[in-house]
């Protein structure tokens, strides 16, 4: 593998469907980072991931994974990447032992000992049929398989959706360990922003097939803030100074994208720190500008 700075480089990726367009999106996942790919259902997260994995043919743009072209070097890349989907792709009649045998046929670098170590760690039975596993156990099995062939890039599509907080935390712990190796990177698509808040180094917001925001999570959280003011004060704020505003009975909450500039411009206003969820909410509504 060549040396590379970014585990994923997407440039002007375009995919047109009837009623939906992934509109020339571009973003990067630096090597060694966890990228949270955030967006509501139907925003274009899965389409982007499918294009990354060459499951669908893009209409335009370029994708580089681990420093290589995702089509020309497809199979060499896939030897070093792992994908985790929202649904288990192994038949429910299989046992974990049979999954182990199956993966020997999929990856030359399959590490049986590591897989069994993960099974023991997750307390997953080896001889029990997957049909009898809980949803959390199935996801753990999928993650154990994904992490047992030395993948340098882990791509997850809504993998933690539908899991209870305890299982989600266990899984996040595994990812924290995985990312200790600086060669490892993760792209994690989700609409559960609290998970990404805990683990992501970078975030990319996507909505209606367009990238709204991309960058380091801490920088984004530091730069953004919610200004709280009365409806009267809000009316005096020019539309260009904020992303969107939520009106309620007590006044207005205004999402600011440049907190330090806003603090100097409106010294008497109250500013609160914000969360990824709020940022997503206010950006998604930026077309309306003012909403309730």
């Amino acid at each position, binding site marked *: 593998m060549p040396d590379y700075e970014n585990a994923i480089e997407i440039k002007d990726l375009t995919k047109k*469907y009837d009623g939906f367009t992934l509109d020339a999106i571009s973003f990067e996942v630096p090597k060694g980072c966890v990228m949270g790919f955030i967006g509501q259902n139907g925003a274009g997260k899965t389409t982007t991931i*499918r294009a990354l*994995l*060459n*499951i*669908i*043919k893009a209409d335009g743009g370029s994708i580089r994974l681990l420093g290589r072209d995702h089509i020309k070097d497809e*199979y*060499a890349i*896939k*030897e070093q*990447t*792992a*994908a985790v*989907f929202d*649904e*288990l*792709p*192994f*038949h*429910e*009649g*299989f046992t974990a032992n*049979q999954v182990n*045998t*199956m*993966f*020997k*046929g*999929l*990856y*030359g*670098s*399959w590490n049986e000992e590591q897989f069994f170590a993960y099974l023991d760690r997750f307390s997953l039975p080896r001889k029990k049929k997957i049909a009898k596993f809980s949803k959390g156990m199935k996801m753990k099995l999928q993650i154990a398989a994904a992490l047992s062939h030395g993948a340098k890039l882990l*791509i997850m599509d809504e993998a933690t959706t539908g899991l209870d907080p305890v299982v989600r935390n266990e899984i996040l712990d595994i990812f924290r360990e995985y990312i200790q190796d600086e060669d490892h990177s993760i792209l994690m698509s989700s609409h559960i922003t609290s998970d990404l808040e805990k683990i992501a180094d970078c975030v990319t917001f996507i909505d209606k097939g367009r990238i709204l925001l991309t960058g380091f999570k801490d920088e984004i959280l530091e730069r953004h803030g919610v200004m709280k003011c009365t409806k009267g004060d809000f009316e005096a704020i020019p539309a260009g100074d904020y992303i969107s505003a939520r009106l309620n009975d007590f006044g207005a909450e205004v999402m600011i994208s440049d907190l330090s500039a806003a603090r100097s411009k409106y010294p008497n206003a109250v500013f609160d720190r914000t969360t990824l969820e709020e940022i997503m909410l206010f950006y998604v509504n930026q077309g309306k500008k003012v909403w309730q």
Partner: protein
Amino acid sequence: MRKKASFPALVYRELILCQKSLMAYAVSTLLFTMMPILVILSLRYGNLALLPESIVADIRANNDLMLTLSAAICPCMLVMAIAESAVLDTQIKWDRFRRSTPVKPARMALAKYALFAILLLASVVAAIAVMALCHGLLGSPIQKTDIAVIMALIAGAGMLNVISQVFIMLFRSVDKGMLAMIGCAAAAMFLIPQEWKVNITVDKLLGGAEALLPLMPVILMGILALGFGLTTYIYARREK
């Protein structure tokens, strides 16, 4: 140098996917083979043997082929078990996951058709063995016609299997795939000229099967090659 993934492991995956169908065929083979064998035993040693010799001879003249064939029909269909892997793969969206792995489409298709070839061979061996057993019990040697009929049935089952798998994978739906296969079979019936249908007789069918017998290895290889080629093509196609 990078270690290569294990090919037998891929074949094993296909085998595990078909295990329920294989079990069902094994049980059916036991049951359906048992019944004609019991009739044959009755004709030789049981109540039917107590009938006058001329009647027994009549029964045998009209039913020997039917008895041996009905005993061998289940093993002939064994190859159909592999259709289950396409059905299950569709249900679990295996195709999406397969595309995230480094396994090339041709290798995955080869694993499927390696098992297909094994099942085809097992079908031939099992069907001939059952037929030979029936003939042994009847005290008559196995005929060229018997083997020709077995091979024609296996080739037919193999072809149906390829068509059903291809349609299921193509439509990514079991229902649509099976419907398309039935549609193809119905269309084929319409394409057969009417005079053939009217003039068709058992003797003609048996004669046709015997005529095709020397070509059977080529026909079976052709079915395997066609299935492998179409499956590789479908695996290599990207979603829209």
